[in-house]
């Protein structure tokens, strides 16, 4: 049997707001990653909940945790339990829609963020012990666990886009650990998910945004 747990802090930890590592801590982490991708505070949040999330989200504080994450709270932020009130005070319109639909994972949520013309749709699942996976961004199927520093880029599917991004990273001394590219159709909008080893990459993101075919670049780490 493969070892799934490596660190003593996988067992004595994480530190988190209760009551459930999968339904609370994982949900907060999903919210936080979605916020990082969106890059700013949304005006409107619509959250579709699936299966176990749909059935027990209130009792487990999954709703509170997801919104806390969207407000940039860590799973151990003591303000997390007041996230719904805080979102209201910030004028954010929040709506939860439990659905009967079957999802690929029992603990799944589709989060739709809106601000003016800007819109983002992300599907996230909580896969256990506070670990998460992002499976879809704006209709792109991806697989992202967000436990390594990650760059997410939305770009035009044109020749040279990937090379230019790779060049920026090379020039800044950033090492690519894994990379995944996906597109809607030839020449259409495309997405890059790049896991890197370094944590200081603000300069690289700025340089990438200067490239004309790059629409959006965000960075996050947990």
């Amino acid at each position: 049997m493969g070892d799934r747990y490596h660190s003593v802090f996988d067992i004595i930890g994480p530190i988190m707001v209760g009551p459930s590592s999968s339904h609370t801590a994982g949900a907060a982490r999903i919210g936080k990653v979605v916020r990082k991708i969106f890059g700013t505070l949304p005006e409107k949040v619509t959250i579709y909940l699936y299966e176990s999330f749909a059935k027990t989200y209130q009792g487990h504080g999954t709703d509170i945790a997801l919104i806390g994450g969207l407000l940039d709270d860590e799973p151990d932020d003591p303000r997390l339990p007041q996230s719904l009130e805080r979102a209201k005070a910030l004028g954010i319109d929040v709506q939860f829609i439990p659905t009967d639909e079957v999802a690929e994972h029992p603990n799944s949520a589709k989060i739709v963020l809106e601000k003016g013309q800007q819109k983002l749709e992300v599907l996230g699942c909580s896969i256990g012990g506070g670990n998460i996976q992002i499976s879809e961004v704006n209709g792109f199927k991806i697989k992202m666990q967000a436990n390594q520093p990650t760059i997410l880029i939305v770009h035009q599917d044109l020749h040279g886009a990937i090379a230019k991004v790779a060049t920026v990273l090379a020039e800044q001394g950033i090492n690519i650990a894994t990379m995944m590219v996906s597109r809607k159709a030839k020449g259409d909008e495309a997405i890059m998910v790049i896991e890197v080893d370094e944590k200081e990459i603000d300069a690289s993101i700025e340089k990438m945004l200067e490239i004309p075919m790059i629409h959006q670049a965000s960075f996050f780490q947990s």
Partner: protein
Amino acid sequence: MMFSFSSNIELARGGTNTMIKRGITLVFHSIKELVTLAENAGSVSEAMIQVELQRGNMTREEIWGQMDHQLSVMEKAVARGIEGVASPTGLTGNDATRLMHYIEKGNFISGETILKAVRNAIATNEVNAAMGLVCATPTAGSAGVVPGVLFAARDQLNLTREQMIRFLFTAGAFGLVTANNASISGAEGGCQAEIGSASGMAAAALTEAAGGTPEMSSAAMAITLKNMMGLICDPVAGLVEVPCVKRNALGASQAMISADMALAGITSAIPTDEVIAAMYKVGIQMPTIFKETAEGGLADTPTGRDIKMKIFGVDA
């Protein structure tokens, strides 16, 4: 020297610390290997620290500081729970306070240390149910047992802060083997995997804190896991409240008794690794209605279904 994988592992003893030669991978995949590592390192906690160091992500000071932080979070959760908290559903809360008053009266049947462990465990899980801050040990639903036992032991054994931090490394070491060879998830292995594992971890760590050998710690864990074997996960309304809070309480009491038994020289007829393997097998053989789906056991009683109806407006 017997280590698991490489014959070239050498430990050079220097002062009170055990130095590890560069380029050697220190690992343990079984309790047997952990006990051997611990006998060479001087204690289970020291072996765990060295293995963690070997991962290369943190310095010794950072590792120690992180565990010190986990301990502080546990300490605050216990204090908050004893002060009195209730969950948003109202299903659990304030029992830690009740028990505190009962202990203060002094007219109890079992023993003060055990009752304190029970009180601390309830306190932690009541805070967890109330969306308070806890340290998952190994999960949030089983977060009460290890701190429950630890803070009761502090009073009884006059443990220093350093000894308390070491307690957590030891608990974590035994938990790692259980997590990798069986499970620590109720959804995978039932409550035996969650509160069972937590209780075994606490028993082993308490044994070491009280001066027992690594072998005695191993026996304490085996004794606990054997009695928890087959325990189902049947949360009422799917919430981490009923029966989770009280199972943490009784898990903590069992950890204390198991530690005393091991310290008395009582051993386990079935080796600890075989007990863990049996627990894994039982978890696989357990029907899914008993694995955190809230479809069996206490969740499927008339009152359990009523509670679910009242909270979520749907029948179980």
